[in-house]
């Protein structure tokens, strides 16, 4: 398992080195070199691991006893390398490497110390995510899960001088923490019922029927709460659009391979548990569909390119969760992979555009196809993949998810997701046409991205196009997994890909006609839907509900409890103190300090004893 250890050791060593040696961290470029070397080692090791697992055709587990128990099984720490985790590790290391290379250029205007700090955080973040992926038990998953949260907090709030950035970082941290409470409770419930944290043992117990009933349902529901927070499911999606305050490459990383991917990855990982809890699976499915639709609708009225992409991530995560809930985890995982490619691509493209024109507003960009041909071509590839147009990666994975949902017998959910796919294509097309074409000249002097930015773009663009064909590998990956997925993977009805293509093309054509050919006036459409647009712009009032709950419920309750603590609890303590103090003030006068007063008392005591002894 030396390869699996190396996967973790690379970024950890880079983080430790940069963390412990401040001169190295503050030196700028060398710090970046250390971090990139670390993640590079990790990527090579991850590829070696995946190759080995694939050749062996069986998962590989290494574990050490962490907390020995006198009764019951001991708590172990370990690395689990199967098709799922090894391929995910490759994906994480790969995206992290590309993002770090891209950042060399994107962050070059940062002062040297903060440049080094940026790479230190990146190493920590990559280490945390890889540890989460390779964890072989729930407890270890939870530890790295929180580390991922910390990493995202640090990176979203990287420009902590900006109040919005530090607010967004806190919001991300607290919102995901809210779900993580459920995660912790779920782990404890499962442990107290099954007596183990390990995935393999949990799956064995649930298959054998030793783990069942309310405990299983509550445990899985708790874990799903954690996944909701991380994967930005309704109503915990509110942190993701705000997280755009971080540097754009960080958004690419968070949206593609780390953080939000963690929730879906966890649901895929515990798919055997989910398969035994149809109640929870239904909730997962319903919330997934709701999230997909709401987020897509909010993206329609957004003008900030990064926020459009953020809402599209939330929406795509909804698709993945819906697939998980519908019992098609392999489709969800497939989409997780393809989505990682094209969403990282789109964010890096957005970074490249923002870098060139210094604005996030798509309506202030335009006429960039001639000036930035590579970036725009990559944008087109990413947009097509996100819309799910044949033969890009997004088409295959979305098709599989839709087929899975239909096969699970959710026609209504299927219809909503299909419409959502159309909306996705529309807003993606809108962002593309408005930002790169149109009649507005971009401000300043835009220029093509430099090589370190262009290279990751091209690599990802190629992958975003071809990864779907390679997706046939995915069932093979699951064959070597610790939980071979016995899902009914029959051939989807022919109309599923047809409908998906129609809805995607319809969305794109509508966007093209509206925003590029001026076939109709989008502004007029917007006006005629006035109240609805307001609702969308207020993001379905979810943020307001959270704020209201905070301000009018949580604060009020806290104040009441605070009053009780200050005046009742503290009051009792203060009264006792005061009484003691007063009594002591009276009693102290007995101590005259004269030795003969004490002797009088002694003599009186003697007389008393004699009297009591003899009765006189």
């Amino acid at each position: 398992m030396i390869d699996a250890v190396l996967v973790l050791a690379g970024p950890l060593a880079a983080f430790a080195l940069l963390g412990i040696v401040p001169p190295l961290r503050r030196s700028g470029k060398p710090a970046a070199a250390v971090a990139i070397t670390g993640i590079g080692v990790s990527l090579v090791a991850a590829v070696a691991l995946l190759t080995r697992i694939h050749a062996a055709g069986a998962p590989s587990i290494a574990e050490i006893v962490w907390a020995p128990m006198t009764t019951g099984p001991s708590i172990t720490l370990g690395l689990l390398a199967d098709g799922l985790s090894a391929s995910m590790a490759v994906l994480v290391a790969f995206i992290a490497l590309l993002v770090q290379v891209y950042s060399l250029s994107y962050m070059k205007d940062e002062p040297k110390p903060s440049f080094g700090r940026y790479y230190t955080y990146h190493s920590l973040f990559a280490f945390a995510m890889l540890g989460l992926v390779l964890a072989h038990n729930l407890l270890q998953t939870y530890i790295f899960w929180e580390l991922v949260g910390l990493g995202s907090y640090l990176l979203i709030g990287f420009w902590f001088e900006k109040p919005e950035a530090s607010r967004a970082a806190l919001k991300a941290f607290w919102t995901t923490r809210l779900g993580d409470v459920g995660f912790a409770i779920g782990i404890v419930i499962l442990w107290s019922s099954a007596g183990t944290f390990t995935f393999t043992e949990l799956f064995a117990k649930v298959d054998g029927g030793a783990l069942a009933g309310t405990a299983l349902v509550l445990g899985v529901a708790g874990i799903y709460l954690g996944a909701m927070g991380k994967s930005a499911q309704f109503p915990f999606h509110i942190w993701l659009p705000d997280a755009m305050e971080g540097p754009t490459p960080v958004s690419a990383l968070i949206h593609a391979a780390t953080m939000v991917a963690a929730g879906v990855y966890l649901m895929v990982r515990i798919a055997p548990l989910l398969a035994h809890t149809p109640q929870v699976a239904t909730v997962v499915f319903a919330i997934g569909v709701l999230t997909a639709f709401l987020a897509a609708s909010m993206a329609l009225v957004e003008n900030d390119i990064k926020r459009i992409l953020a809402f599209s991530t939330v929406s795509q995560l909804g698709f993945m969760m819906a697939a998980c809930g519908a019992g098609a985890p392999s489709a969800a995982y497939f989409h997780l992979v393809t989505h990682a490619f094209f969403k990282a691509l789109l964010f890096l493209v957005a970074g490249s555009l923002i870098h060139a024109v210094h604005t996030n507003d798509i309506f202030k960009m335009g006429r960039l196809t001639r000036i930035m041909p590579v970036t725009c071509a990559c944008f087109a590839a990413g947009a097509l993949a996100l819309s799910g147009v044949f033969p890009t990666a997004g088409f295959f994975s979305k098709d599989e998810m839709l087929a899975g949902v239909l096969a699970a017998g959710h026609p209504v959910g299927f219809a909503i997701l299909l419409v959502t796919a159309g909306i996705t294509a529309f807003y993606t097309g809108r962002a593309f046409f408005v930002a790169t074409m149109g009649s507005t000249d971009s401000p300043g002097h835009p220029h093509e991205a430099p090589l370190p930015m262009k290279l990751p773009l091209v690599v990802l663009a190629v992958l975003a196009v071809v990864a779907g064909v390679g997706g046939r590998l995915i069932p093979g990956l699951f064959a070597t997994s610790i939980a071979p997925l016995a899902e009914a993977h029959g051939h989807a009805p022919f109309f599923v890909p047809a409908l998906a293509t129609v809805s995607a093309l319809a969305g794109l054509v509508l966007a093209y006609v509206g925003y590029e050919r001026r076939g109709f006036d989008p502004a007029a459409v917007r006006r005629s839907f006035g109240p609805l647009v307001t609702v969308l712009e207020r993001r379905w009032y979810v943020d307001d509900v959270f704020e209201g709950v905070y301000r009018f419920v949580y604060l009020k309750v806290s104040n009441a409890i605070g009053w009780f603590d200050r005046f009742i609890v503290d009051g009792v303590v203060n009264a006792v103190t005061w009484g003691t103090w007063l009594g002591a003030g009276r009693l102290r006068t007995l101590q005259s300090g004269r030795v003969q007063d004490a002797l009088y008392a002694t003599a009186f005591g003697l007389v008393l004893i004699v009297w009591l002894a003899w009765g006189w």
Partner: protein
Amino acid sequence: MTLGNLLVVAAGVFAIGLFGVLARRHAIGVLLSIELMFNAVNLAIVAIAWSKGLIVGVVLVMFGIAITVAEIAVGLALVLLASRVAKSVVLDDLSELKG
């Protein structure tokens, strides 16, 4: 000379000593009164030992006297120190432990 008479004398001496301890204001006077009380006790022990024909009582009293000497040495040293530090050997002046 009966045991009863002896014990009455011992009790009388003890009472005088106790009165002295409680009433005297001078530290050396108090120490003297303590000696009186000690000797009253010694007398009582010797008297009881004599009436029972025991030699043990005499031995015990010898020990008692030796300890008394040591105690007086310590006591006088303390009085000496008090006179130097507090410039007074009157007990009413030495009341620093007043609450």
